[in-house]
């Protein structure tokens, strides 16, 4: 207790939080696909996204975590919920839930599994055991510099894409402009 006051970050129960957040993410992922009521699925997805934001925080990437909360949990999921709530759930609940496309699913699962194993086996060589910790303070700044410097072109292309999407949405939604 006496030495508790000291400057600098003190990681608090990092391992515990890592497993807690990962477990939450996985659990909510399972819930997303197994819940019959799409609203419950969406809520599970929100929890998953929040848990992911927690993981980002643990990686000393607070900006990404903040954006994750604002955009995904706060923005996109609200729109998701909107759409789901207005859709005729009665009908969708009577429809079949799984497509029974076993072959495709199996192939995808096997491919992912292989990838996972390969990364796990070779990963130790590919990545250093522990990457250099970027300073939490400069993280946000670095993202800004990167986005508006090195990846300027990609950034602008992405914004153009979004513009196209907006216009498309307006055209589709408005019967008469």
């Amino acid at each position, binding site marked *: 207790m006496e030495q508790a006051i000291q400057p600098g970050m003190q990681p608090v129960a990092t391992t515990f939080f890592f497993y807690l957040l990962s477990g939450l993410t996985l659990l909510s992922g399972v819930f997303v696909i197994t819940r019959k009521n799409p609203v419950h699925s969406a809520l599970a997805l929100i929890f998953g996204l929040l848990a992911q934001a927690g993981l980002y925080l643990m990686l000393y990437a607070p900006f990404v975590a903040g954006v994750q909360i604002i955009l995904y949990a706060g923005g996109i999921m609200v729109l998701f919920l909107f759409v789901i*709530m207005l859709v005729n759930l009665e009908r969708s609940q009577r429809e079949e839930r799984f497509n029974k496309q076993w072959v495709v699913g199996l192939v995808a699962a096997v491919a992912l599994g292989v990838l996972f194993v390969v990364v796990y086996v070779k990963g130790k060589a590919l990545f250093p055991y522990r990457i250099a910790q970027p300073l939490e303070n400069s993280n946000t700044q670095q993202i800004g510099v990167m986005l508006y410097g090195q990846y300027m072109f990609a950034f602008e292309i992405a914004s153009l894409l979004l513009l196209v999407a907006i216009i498309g949405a307006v055209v589709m939604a408005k019967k008469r402009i």
Partner: protein
Amino acid sequence: MTDRTMFDLKPTDPKPADDKYLSHLELGEPDKTFLDTNELVINMGPQHPATHGVLRVILKLDGEKVLGTECVIGYLHRGVEKIAENRTYTMFNPYVDRMDYVAAVSNGLGYCEAVEKLLNIEAPPRAKYIRVILTELNRLASHQLWLGTHALDIGAMTPLFYTFRDREEILKIFEKYCGARLTTHAFRIGGCQYETYEGFERDVVKFLDFVPPKIDEYEELLTTNRIWLERTKNVGVISRADAIALGVTGPVLRASGVKWDLRKAQPYAAYSDFDFEVPIGANGDTYDRYTVRMEEMRQSLRIIRQAVEKIPEGPIMAKVPKVMKPPVGEIYHSIEAPKGELGYFIVSDGSTQPYRVRIRPPSFVNLQALDIMVRGALVADVIAVIGTLDIVLGEVDR
């Protein structure tokens, strides 16, 4: 599609009876995608904070846009017209107060004058003046109550308390005059029952000096308030032609630009003696109805002031037979109640009881205009329009 709408979200039984899940093609209506919107039918009332009583409005909505409305009324139906047939002329007099209970004095005036016409008698001038003073005070009270509740519906809380504070002064005068505040039964067939109390004129004059700054106060809160303007301008517009075709009367008709007031057109009581303006509006929207009523308040004050100054001495009761037996015949008499033309059609068969009393309630007829006023508007406008029509359900349903 059944009558379940898109808003009926949770099915009572998600599984079909045979417990078999179907693909969306088997469910029928394959051309209908989930993006197709359905209309939403929403039930406003009969217990709803903004329907001013037990009005039930069934709204058909597309999103928030109103596609159509249907009013379901009658929750407060008491069969006043049937009661009239089973009471004598005198006995029925207090019943009319219970129709438009916020303007009870006007109801009484209309009924008394109709029966007087049928009996072919006339109230003495002093009684007529007292009637005018009380009726105009009542008009003011009614408009104040309208303003408070209307503003409250649109979200401005404060005017309600201001108007009720000032309405209280009117009710105090009523109470001093006849003992009752709301359902006053102030007039009798042939005149007035009570002579004015000591200091009546002083009270009224004091009130006349007291209230104009208060009306300015209400206007200060609302008239130039941007949100108020946006909420009321071009909302619930009713054109001159529509207004006449729908038979709406009172401030609603005048706001649509028809300069017609029964006090001017067919003067009754002592109204021909007074000098006053009939305010009209230009667009027939909610804001015009607001300004018209505000101006009417001021004109009422003008009338009262003249009446108090000119009030003659003399008897207050005409010679009326103890047992009223009007000759066989029919009479239609109407007055300008705060809400519009209030008419009484009375059929006499020569007995002591009216054979038939038909009451033409202004609220009932005005309410009919709700539908065309809110078509294409938003839900919030429905509230504003119900408020601006100034209906009293006691009168709509009788």
